[in-house]
Structure formats: structure tokens, C-alpha cells
């Protein structure tokens, strides 16, 4: 197995891109990543594209070929593969690219993620996102995605000392970070009252507990570490790539408010890298809902079960805190174009490790990403370092 490095990153602004199409979003992110890597397209050996549901959002399948075509790579016949694991599609596309390079099969590989969600109405979007859970036995009963996470929140709050205000602090912190991120969908600061006064979506979760519906794309270039200096003076090493699965339905989990796949993927990533929680300088976790960030911090082992609410309220996970979480603004404030989120997390950690994060810069040499599909049926964890 070869060591792998990230040599280029690119990300569109996240938001409602009314005038930009699915394919143009990808082309923009891809071009930014190649420019950052100082590469031209014909050098690319393979593409892996994370996308959850273009078939339903924009009625387009066969995304791998489409992307390669509009990226100008059809004449090179560059192999291009779509990767799908609901909201973890991006993280999984990155992992496939890492595996391709580590194995020696490919040298210069692009991992990308793209989602165009605003071409359908909110009701249709809610229905599509619910297909990340079990359509036959959760969706059929009327389960929405916020509804499933709301049931995690109620289970959690019934068993552990988490207050409604502490939960709101997650969103407040992520908006604070998003306000400092030029690509974030929401760059406005909010207060605990903003969250508590927003409308109920699924009790106890309110509108400001939920990540938004977003258009966006992100891309990164990975190469063997031994070749990284050909392209850049600031390569970022992939120290671990780990993935885990769990039951598709929330009701079949061993424990409703522990994502066992997060626990497993986190443990594997720490074992692969020989690192522990105290070595991690920042984490991008999958905060599709505020409760998801609380669970992620605990499931990855940064604190004990039941402690993450207090940790958040005490500022431990803020920019200046002991373990900054979601410096990008997270899914909540940066936005959540489902297939692109996992790649954006990689982009954020690389930006931080290079020292290019501007107003949201933290002191960091090692960062972690945590990307969740569904309510925890797929989890992908990466550790990156300089």
C-alpha cells in the first residue's frame, strides 16, 4: 500500500444556485481543484464522483460519464465512477480515490461530490432525503429525515443531561464559524433565541437545528505521496481512511442515540493512523442536525456519552476551544449539498492544515472528517495531516 496525499482542492460557494446547473457546478469545483493542484485534465487517471440522488433531483443518472464529459475528459476516455451512500457519498468517493491510489492502480485521481437540490420543491426534497433511510419500513409510516433525528434527540434527552439550550448552542457555534467562511450558505450569526424561536420541524428539533437544502460541488486531487512534491509544496497526507456500516433503519440499532458505525469507523481510523483523540486538532463532523453533532463528538471518543452538550456550551468545540468542531460552519451553516458534503469536509481540513483559513484559522497539524449516510447506516472517517 502506498501513502496518499491531497495536492489540490476546490469548492463552489454553497447555496441556492438558481442559474447554475448540476453539471456546471461540478465543472466549477473541478476546475478550481485542478488549478490549485497545478494540473491539466489529461493527467487525470480516474474520477470518483459522490452523488446521492441526481436521478430524482435532476432526473439524470449515469453521472460518472456526464461529469467526465463536461469536465472535458471524454476525448481522453478517462474512467469515471459514481459513488453513492446517501449523505456520505462524498466521503466515500474520497475513500475510493484513496484506495485507487494506495493500491497502485492509479496515480492522479480526482474525488468529487456534487448535488443540485433546489430544482425540486421542499416537499419533494424531504421525500428524496427520506430515501436515505428505509423507504419500506420508515418512509412508508411517514418518517421524515428530521423526524428520525428528532427521535434520536428525544431518546438522548430522555437518558442524558442535555438541555434544549445546549442543543441550540451547536447551531450558534456553527453559524459563528460559517460567518467567517466565504463559501458558506449562511454567513449570519444567530443566538440561542433564534433557534428556540424558530418553527418546530419535528419535536424537539426546530428549523435552526436543521441543515439546509443546498446546491454545491467540491473536488480534490489525490496522488501517491512520493509524487506529491511534483505538484505542490504543501501536500496534505491521508493518515487514515475508514468506513463502517450499520442497520439501514434507526429502529434496528443496538442503541438509538449511539451511531455504532461512527464508533467503529472512528476506532478503525485511530488504529490505522496510530493516533488518538488528543492528537486531533480539528474535526469536521456530520451535523445534519444539531443532535447529530452531539452524538458525533461522543461517538468519535472526544468525550463520554452525555457530555457533548456541556462541552459545546462551554466553548470547547468553538474556534478557540480545545477541539474545534466544524470550523467550516458545518452542514448547518456552510450548507449541505448531500453528495458534496464529504468532499467539502476534506477541503476544509486541507485549508486549515495549509494555514489558508483566514478569519476561522485554527492552529492545526492533524484534522479529522466524519461523514454520515442516512441516520448512521454508513459512516466514513478520514484523518489528514501535514
Amino acid at each position, binding site marked *: 500500500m502506498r501513502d496518499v496525499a491531497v495536492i489540490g482542492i476546490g469548492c463552489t460557494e454553497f447555496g441556492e444556485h438558481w442559474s447554475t446547473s448540476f453539471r456546471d457546478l461540478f465543472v466549477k469545483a473541478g476546475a478550481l481543484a485542478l488549478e490549485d493542484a497545478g494540473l491539466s485534465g489529461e493527467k487525470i487517471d480516474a474520477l470518483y464522483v459522490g452523488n446521492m440522488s441526481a436521478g430524482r433531483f435532476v432526473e439524470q443518472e449515469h453521472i460518472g460519464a456526464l461529469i467526465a464529459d463536461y469536465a472535458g475528459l471524454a476525448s481522453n476516455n478517462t474512467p469515471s465512477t459514481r459513488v453513492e451512500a446517501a449523505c456520505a457519498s462524498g466521503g466515500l468517493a474520497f475513500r475510493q480515490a484513496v484506495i485507487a491510489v494506495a493500491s497502485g492502480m492509479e496515480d492522479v485521481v480526482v474525488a468529487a461530490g456534487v448535488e443540485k437540490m433546489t430544482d425540486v420543491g421542499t416537499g419533494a426534497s424531504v*421525500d428524496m432525503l427520506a430515501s436515505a433511510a428505509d423507504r419500506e*419500513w420508515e418512509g412508508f409510516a411517514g418518517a421524515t429525515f428530521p*423526524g428520525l433525528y428528532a427521535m434520536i434527540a428525544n431518546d438522548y434527552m430522555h437518558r442524558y443531561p442535555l438541555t434544549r439550550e445546549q442543543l441550540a448552542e451547536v447551531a450558534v457555534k456553527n453559524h459563528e464559524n460559517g460567518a467567517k467562511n466565504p463559501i458558506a450558505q449562511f454567513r449570519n450569526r444567530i443566538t440561542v433565541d433564534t433557534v428556540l424561536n424558530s418553527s418546530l420541524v419535528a419535536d424537539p428539533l426546530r428549523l435552526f437545528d436543521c441543515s439546509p437544502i443546498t446546491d454545491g460541488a467540491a473536488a480534490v486531487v489525490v496522488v501517491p505521496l512520493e509524487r506529491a512534491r511534483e505538484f505542490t509544496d504543501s501536500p496534505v497526507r491521508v493518515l487514515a481512511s475508514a468506513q463502517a456500516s450499520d442497520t439501514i433503519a434507526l429502529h434496528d440499532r443496538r442503541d438509538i442515540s449511539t451511531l455504532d458505525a461512527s464508533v467503529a469507523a472512528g476506532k478503525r481510523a485511530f488504529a490505522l493512523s496510530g493516533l488518538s483523540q488528543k492528537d486531533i486538532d480539528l474535526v469536521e463532523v456530520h451535523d445534519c442536525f444539531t443532535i447529530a453533532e452531539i452524538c458525533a463528538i461522543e461517538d468519535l471518543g472526544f468525550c463520554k456519552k452525555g457530555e457533548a452538550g456541556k462541552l459545546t456550551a462551554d466553548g470547547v468545540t468553538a474556534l478557540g476551544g480545545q477541539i474545534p468542531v466544524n470550523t467550516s460552519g458545518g452542514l448547518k451553516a456552510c450548507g449541505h449539498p448531500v453528495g458534496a458534503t464529504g468532499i467539502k469536509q476534506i477541503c476544509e481540513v486541507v485549508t486549515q492544515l495549509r494555514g489558508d483559513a483566514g478569519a476561522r484559522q485554527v492552529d492545526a497539524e492533524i484534522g479529522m472528517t466524519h461523514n454520515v449516510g442516512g441516520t448512521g447506516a454508513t459512516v466514513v472517517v478520514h484523518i489528514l495531516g501535514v
Partner: protein
Amino acid sequence: MSVSRFWRKIPQRYNLVGTQCTTCGRYFFPPRSLCPDCRRSGNIVDHQFTGEGTVVTYTVIRSASDQFDHTTPYVLAIVKLDEGPRLTTQVACLPEEAKIGMRVKSVFRRVTADGESGTIHYGTKFVPVE
């Protein structure tokens, strides 16, 4: 949901018919055709559940997909059947009546429909036990 996809599981959806692995005794609802513990050495048979259980966790859905939007707010819950398995279901009660630990029993109800002229999908919901 397409007619064939719904029709295929009518006994399960209408009458709470799940499965049991007779090798290890474990019950499954939603039904499984492979026991995750015994795998190929398992033996799966149909099982009629009693329909009594307890609410493990719940929420009140205020904003739903287009198909369910006209029925909001509704109580959605994970119910643990007395035989062991857990399922996701609606509890036909007022939002303020829902509680973790509440005893419930299954009832046959209309769940949703494919538009105004499409197939009506019936199934199992739960109601509080007095």
C-alpha cells in the same frame, strides 16, 4: 409507492405478520428472510405478532413530505413489540399525549394514498392502551 411494491407486503402491513428464526428463536418485524445471527443456518417462518408494545422514542412531525403533509402534525414513534423487535410507526394520539414508555397496541388504519384517485395504502398504526 408502486402498487406491486405495496401489494407484495399486504399481510405484513395490514396484520403485523413478521418472521421468526426457529433456529435461535429471534423475532423480526419488519420481516427478514435471513436471520442476521444464524445466517444460512437459520430457518425463517412467518409469525403473527400480538401487536402490543411500548414507545421507545417519538417525535411530532410538523413538516412532512408532500404525501403526508395534509396529515401534520402527527406522532411518529419507534415501538418495541413485546416479542422484541422494534418498528417505526405512527401513534394515533394527540401530540401532547405521546410519552416515552407509553404502552400501545396495533390498529388497522389508512396510512397514505397515491394522490386523490390513486391506491389507498392501509397499514398498521398504534394507539395508546388505556
